């Protein structure tokens, strides 16, 4: 309990940040990226201006670390992030939000953007992720597996089925034949996680990477059939104003967008994802 009391303010700040979908301005507060191993003169050409990236909520920590490493190579480039539920981000992009790069947590939400002919090229899957049961430290609800999700006395949180983690949760529960007694359907995976961190929820389904990112406040329980719920994360550059017939006049920095995606796919970028618990594409 003592540890819980101490953690509360931090968790509260995390909750505010997660729920308001804070736009982070390349300020990498999170895990220090790997030491910059400036191997080659691969990027002698420095990038400038602003690069706007919309990314799934579950990428919050890794993309912030990637941004730090990327910024070390391109100090004059300003990176602006908007983290949130992939489906909400996709809607914002279709409605004309100014954005250069979109990284979604599922092919379905990416399709919203590609169907609207806003993607420049084909989306590339850059990481995979799988679901895990998350419980507060100490597992107060005594949760041992998916079957416990059917217990009405436990407080259960899932992602809203329209967001990728929610869709994956539905699949996992269906395959396990569990009818969950759900208390709340949160708007993105981070909202589920923060409610677990605060101890308000006995168990939830979140990504493995989120359990790792949460540290001691959250314990993860591996799913027996987790392979069934592997999520693929596609990333794509959006059409820019110079592109004929572009309906998105706001993608302003195609050079930086391409370089950023290359960096995400590069060994350095992939190592950051691997350290955070993501799977290779």
């Amino acid at each position: 309990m003592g540890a819980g009391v101490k953690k509360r303010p931090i968790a509260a700040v995390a909750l505010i940040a997660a729920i308001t979908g804070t736009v982070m301005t390349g300020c990498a507060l999170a895990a220090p990226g790997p030491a910059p191993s400036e191997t080659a003169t691969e990027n002698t050409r420095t990038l400038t201006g602003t690069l706007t990236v919309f990314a799934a909520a579950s990428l919050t920590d890794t993309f912030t670390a990637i941004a730090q490493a990327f910024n070390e190579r391109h100090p004059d480039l300003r990176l602006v992030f908007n983290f949130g539920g992939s489906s909400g981000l996709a809607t914002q992009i279709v409605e004309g939000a100014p954005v250069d790069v979109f990284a979604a947590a599922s092919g379905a939400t990416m399709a919203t953007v590609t169907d609207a002919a806003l993607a420049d090229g084909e989306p590339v899957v850059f990481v995979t992720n799988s679901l895990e049961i998350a419980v507060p430290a100490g597992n107060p609800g005594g949760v041992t597996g998916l079957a416990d999700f059917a217990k009405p006395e436990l407080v259960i949180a899932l992602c809203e089925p329209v967001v990728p983690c929610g869709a994956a949760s539905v699949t996992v529960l269906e395959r396990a034949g569990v009818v969950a007694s759900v208390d709340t359907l949160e708007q993105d995976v981070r909202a589920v996680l923060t409610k677990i961190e605060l101890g308000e929820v006995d168990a939830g389904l979140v990504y493995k990477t989120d359990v790792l990112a949460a540290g001691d406040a959250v314990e993860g329980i591996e799913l027996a059939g987790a392979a069934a719920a592997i999520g693929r994360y596609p990333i794509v550059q959006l059409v820019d104003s110079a592109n004929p017939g572009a309906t998105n006049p706001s993608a302003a920095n195609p050079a930086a967008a391409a370089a950023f995606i290359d960096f995400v796919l590069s060994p350095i970028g992939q190592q950051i994802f691997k350290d955070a618990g993501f799977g290779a594409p």
Partner: protein
Amino acid sequence: MPVLARRRSALAPALWVPAGLALAVLALPLAALVVRAPWAELPTLLAQGPVAQALMLSLGTAALTTLVSLVLGVPLALLLARSAEWRAIPRRLMRALVTVPLVLPPVVGGVALLLLLGRRGVIGQWLDAWFGITIPFTTTAVVLAQTFVAMPFLVLAVEGAIRASDRRFEIAAATLGANRLTVFRRVTLPLIAPGISAGALLCFTRALGEFGATITFAGSFPGVTQTLPIATYLQLQTDPDAAIALALVLLAVSVIVLVSLKDRWVPGLSS
């Protein structure tokens, strides 16, 4: 007086430009909502079960919130209006406490409620341990979140009405032998009734639109805690047309309620 009147009318053209812009800022987004609305499909979109469910939940919780705010807020407004005789520091502190929820981001209010009444909250942990009561993720939590955000509207409106009312009527009634309860019932209450109605309507509409504190403290589950604004937000992610339809319902209810606010009640709001 005539001089003043002439000066005011002379000012009018210069006033119209910024005032018109101000109106445009407020009205144009709503006009866009009406223009973009899928009018043809509106009946089908609104006939969906979840919509009716969210609407009923919103109307029900907002009504409960208004009731709670009336019972608790009117006495607080009386106290606040009479606090003029207090020392400055407790008086200002109390006024700040009443006003803070108006300016605080509702999400912060939701976090604060979680930290107070959540299962590990300052009070919530004892409610859970002693009575087995947990508040988050229940309809009660929705009402609490709405009350936190909406009650100040009622309190300030009623307080304004009390301050604007002439205390000499009460004093006269008292010197004529009426006891305190009679004075309150027969003199004070009728005098501030318009302020109470205006405050209750504002409180109701604000509660109806509550989103941030609710989704943070009460979560979102259809039929239990998923109010119309939350349903609108979720629909926007998959079906923008349905979201616009929901938004129109919310807009219509709010406009109907607010139009019923009579002009003469409004001075009570500013004080």
